[in-house]
């Protein structure tokens, strides 16, 4: 069967899982019946002595049965027994690892999140929805909508919402800026996808792989880059004053936040859309053209429908990411433009944990709602066309361009200038500011970091402590998240009933903000839990590592799982038919083949941990467990120079991670 029917594959799926389940239950003693002796009988025939083969000469099946019995009694030696025990452990290794990962995930993620939920629901020892009710009726959060929740008539609320004096509250503002950010990201990301998918030029591959960079760039570092660009004394105003234009005030405006969000999310949109565009089969487009469709019509009818799902995925993720935005708004917006997440942080600092928890849960509910709606849509519209022959790329610089060819290229040129400003300026400004002094270039800011380390007071942020903490936490988080990620990858690429559920449970950390995990860890394990009269409390460092591991391991899964998924299942089946257990197959066949993905996942995890801000800032409040990003945040208001210097250090570390990811597994990254 050359083309295996999809239904057939599905069959394979179910039964393989069932077989696994049976094996895991260990009902397999019958297997040992096929003993070495019997194998020898076969081998004799196989080695040319076929006329003397025992089965043949003895005639009939009776002797065969005898051999069998003899052998099974002989095989019950102690050696065999020991072998069987080791075998049984090995067979269950995957299960054991799965249980271990489940326990870790529960402790590191679900338990803290549950703590937050309980915090919001239990007030003075009583279960109540009061905290939520107060939130929903508070116009400070929900604006005019709050009156609706308070029982006012929808008509009057609706009228006020349409009027120009509407109030949208913090939640409304958060959604509003998320929608604008998404639109801006689309506007910046889609032309990039067009350029990357349809044109050939020098550096295209590099540019394409750079789209993964925002995932590893610490958001606080991007924030400082924006401050260095758009601030009062930023590079933008510097350039403007040079050409005689007045200073502009972009910092602490919505525009700055939106541009920073686009910096983060446009590459994501470009990335997923380019991938979809590249998987469009050229022959489908050519067929449409030969049937009479114009290029525009062919785009609309054939290409666009295959891009929508990717664009929508990028948009949905952008919305969720920007809805839960934190460090960027904290640094660029201040509290005047606070989003929900920033306000949750504010409440935590005011020690108002109940309201913080309730607000965080509301935020989570909205984010998950959007993700769920998207996943529902995706499930219904999933069209996976495999581009047998991708669309050919046009040269970006044709030798003799016609007007028709010139127009899109001019557009690309304009886009390139905009993109240059948005993507390059912040990084360049940060680097420039870190070495800029009143009298030309200087290393003063770096020197300041060194001096502060030597002479700083105990309450001051010491740079070396921040670097050391960051590295320590990253190594710890890596040690936890790498095995977790690999195990989850294995579990989510196997086929069995309930796989989807495992997928959702294990990927939830991607959707839950670091703040929630941070509060949960702070209020639970760090403040201490009473178990049977013992008060258990973990140190801040342990909690930070836990929080980092939780936010890192989904990225390991996203780099390892696609590799495992694309492995030919026949490889695994061949190994098993040759006698390898499921675990052995994993070690011998699957992991060696996806090794680059594992290393890339490790680099990812390391970079994410180094740049993690949300949960760290919650857990490190008032302690000396601060990391580089937290140190930058503490510097940012007062000392821009040292903050940018610290940012450059962070940039170096994450760039190294990026190079590793790119060399080893960026192509297959599943986002």
């Amino acid at each position, binding site marked *: 069967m050359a083309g295996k029917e999809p239904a*057939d594959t599905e069959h*394979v799926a179910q039964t393989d899982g069932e077989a696994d389940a049976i094996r895991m239950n260990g009902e397999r003693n019958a297997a040992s019946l*096929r003993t070495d002796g019997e*194998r020898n009988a076969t081998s004799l025939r*196989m080695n040319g002595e076929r006329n003397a083969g025992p089965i043949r000469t003895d005639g009939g099946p009776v002797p065969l049965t005898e051999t069998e019995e003899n052998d099974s009694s002989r095989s019950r030696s102690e050696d065999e027994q020991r072998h069987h025990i080791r075998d049984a452990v090995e067979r269950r290794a995957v299960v054991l690892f799965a249980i271990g990962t489940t326990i870790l995930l529960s402790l590191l993620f679900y338990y803290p999140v549950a703590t937050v939920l309980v915090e919001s629901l239990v007030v003075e020892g009583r279960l109540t929805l009061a905290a939520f009710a107060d939130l929903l009726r508070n116009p400070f959060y929900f604006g005019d909508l709050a009156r609706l929740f308070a029982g006012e008539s929808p008509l009057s609320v609706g009228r006020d919402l349409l009027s120009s004096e509407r109030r949208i509250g913090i939640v409304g503002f958060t959604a509003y800026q998320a929608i604008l950010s998404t639109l801006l990201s689309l506007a910046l990301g889609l032309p990039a996808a067009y350029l990357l998918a349809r044109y050939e030029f020098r550096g295209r591959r590099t540019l394409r792989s750079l789209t993964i960079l925002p995932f590893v760039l610490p958001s606080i570092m991007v924030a400082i880059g924006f401050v260095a660009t758009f601030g009062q004394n930023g590079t933008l105003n510097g350039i403007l004053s040079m050409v005689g234009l007045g200073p502009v005030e972009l910092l602490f405006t919505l525009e700055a936040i939106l541009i920073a969000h686009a910096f983060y999310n446009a590459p994501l949109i470009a990335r997923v859309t380019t991938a979809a565009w590249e998987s469009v089969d050229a022959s489908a487009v050519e067929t449409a053209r030969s049937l009479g469709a114009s290029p525009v019509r062919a785009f609309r009818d054939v290409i666009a429908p295959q891009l929508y799902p990717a664009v929508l995925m990028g948009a949905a993720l952008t919305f969720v990411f920007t809805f839960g935005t934190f460090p960027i708004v904290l640094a660029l917006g201040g509290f005047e433009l606070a989003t929900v997440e920033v306000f949750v942080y504010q409440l935590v600092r005011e020690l108002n944990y109940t309201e913080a928890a309730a607000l965080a849960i509301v935020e989570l509910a909205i984010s998950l709602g959007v993700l769920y709606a998207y996943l529902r849509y995706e499930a219904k519209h999933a069209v996976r066309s495999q581009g047998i022959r991708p669309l050919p790329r046009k040269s970006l610089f044709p030798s003799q361009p016609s007007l028709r060819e010139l127009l899109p290229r001019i557009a690309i040129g304009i886009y390139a200038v905009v993109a240059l400003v948005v993507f390059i300026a912040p990084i360049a400004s940060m680097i420039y500011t870190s070495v800029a002094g009143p009298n030309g270039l200087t290393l003063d800011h770096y020197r300041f970091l060194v001096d502060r380390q030597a002479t700083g007071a105990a309450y001051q942020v010491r740079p070396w402590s921040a670097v050391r903490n960051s590295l320590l936490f990253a190594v710890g988080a890596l040690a936890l998240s790498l095995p977790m990620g690999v195990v989850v990858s294995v579990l989510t690429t196997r086929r069995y009933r309930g796989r989807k559920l495992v997928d959702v449970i294990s990927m939830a950390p991607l959707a839950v903000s670091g703040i929630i995990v941070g509060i949960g860890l702070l209020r639970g394990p760090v403040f201490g839990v009473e178990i049977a009269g013992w008060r258990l409390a973990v140190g801040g460092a342990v909690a930070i590592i836990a929080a980092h591991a939780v936010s890192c391991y989904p990225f390991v899964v996203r780099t390892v799982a696609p590799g495992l998924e694309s492995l030919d299942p026949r490889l695994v*089946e061949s*190994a098993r*038919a040759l*006698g390898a257990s499921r675990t052995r197959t994993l070690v011998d066949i699957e992991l060696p083949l996806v090794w680059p993905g594992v290393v890339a996942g490790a680099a990812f995890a390391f970079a994410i941990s180094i740049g993690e801000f949300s949960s760290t800032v919650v857990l490190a409040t008032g302690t000396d467990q601060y990391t580089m990003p937290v140190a930058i945040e503490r510097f940012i208001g007062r000392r821009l120079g040292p903050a940018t210097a610290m940012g450059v250090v962070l940039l170096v570390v994450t760039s190294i991670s990026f190079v590793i990811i790119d060399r080893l597994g960026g192509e297959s990254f599943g986002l």
Partner: protein
Amino acid sequence: MRALDSNQRSDSPVALTLDNVTMRYGETTAIDELSLSVREGEFFTLVGPSGCGKTTLLRAIAGFETPTEGSIEVRGESMEAVPPEDRGLGIVFQNYALFPHMSVAENVGYGLNFAEPPDGSSKEQRIADLLALVDLSGMSTRTPEQLSGGQQQRVAIARALAAGPDVLLLDEPMSALDAQLRERLRLQVKSIQKELEITTVYVTHDQEEALAISDRVAVMSEGTVEQIGSPRAIYDRPQSSFVAEFIGDNNVFSGEVIEAPPSLEHIRVRIGTETISIAPDTSDPAIDRSPSNHSPSNHSTDDSSTNDSSTNDSSTNDRSHTDRSHTDRSHTDLTPGDRVTFCVRPEKLSIDTERNRFEATVKNSEFLGDSTRTTLEWEDRELLIQSPAHLIGRIAVGFDPADAHIVRRELR
């Protein structure tokens, strides 16, 4: 004309038994109460169109799928709840699935990590022997991607044989190769199988391949076995119109009996306006279906082979209940008014014969090199004729009544 090679084996013990295997996936039934058995050292082929369930069945034998009902036994041992790695079977997939990160030698030796070489030799020696067997000595340090398709396939076979499996399973191992290579490798596979006398179950959709390579063939359709028999029996005496048309080209006719023996030597059948004479099959097709029925030396202890024949019967008859099968009444029982379906191979139609002559119109013809295959239009239907001559226009063709083979009877 009975298949001698399979007769030879009728007294061999049974290596593999499928008993009433049913595989359902939700609403669809992929395999429906299928039973068959394969003897030690036999080359057994499952052939059928895409989606007939042959690959599913092979995967069930290997342990990658679990039957909903029924049992699979290897050498009398139930495979229920036995994971694939403990079944002691060798499998070769269509794409070979060589481990790309291992050398040829490591691939071949992989199974020896879990079992001693069956001949008691060292692992290295065993690998060398197998590579010699498949003509790949000197290739041991290469990686799979440095090999051609045919070489990869031979490595896959060597790998499957290394630990001395009880049964070798081959899942369309030739279909990724070009036609010439396929024929050469077919011979090689067959000769290795003969040399090792290893029980082999081969899955293919290529009926020509199935006929060329097998001791016995099971023709499958929609999850059931249509017919099991030697290649010659399958070709010469198909027991259903499906088999008649799937195995080789065939012309299937269906008509009403006008006169039948004993009043006449031949059965006279009316098809449209024509009347055709066909010879009553003197040999009951059922006889040839399973060689064991014929074997006087049938061991009484060997109830497996009797099993085999009975399961064959049930599998074919299950499908043809409605035919009121020939086993109930012999052919001579045909009486006027009965309906009969029979087939005549294209090469048996001739423009030279005087028997059963009728006029037909040439629709088109294909030049095949050694002959020409022509499509004729006759009685609102198409017929195929294979002849040395190039035919045009309106021609008279006929066939010897003895060349007609009855596949189905509907008694009045």
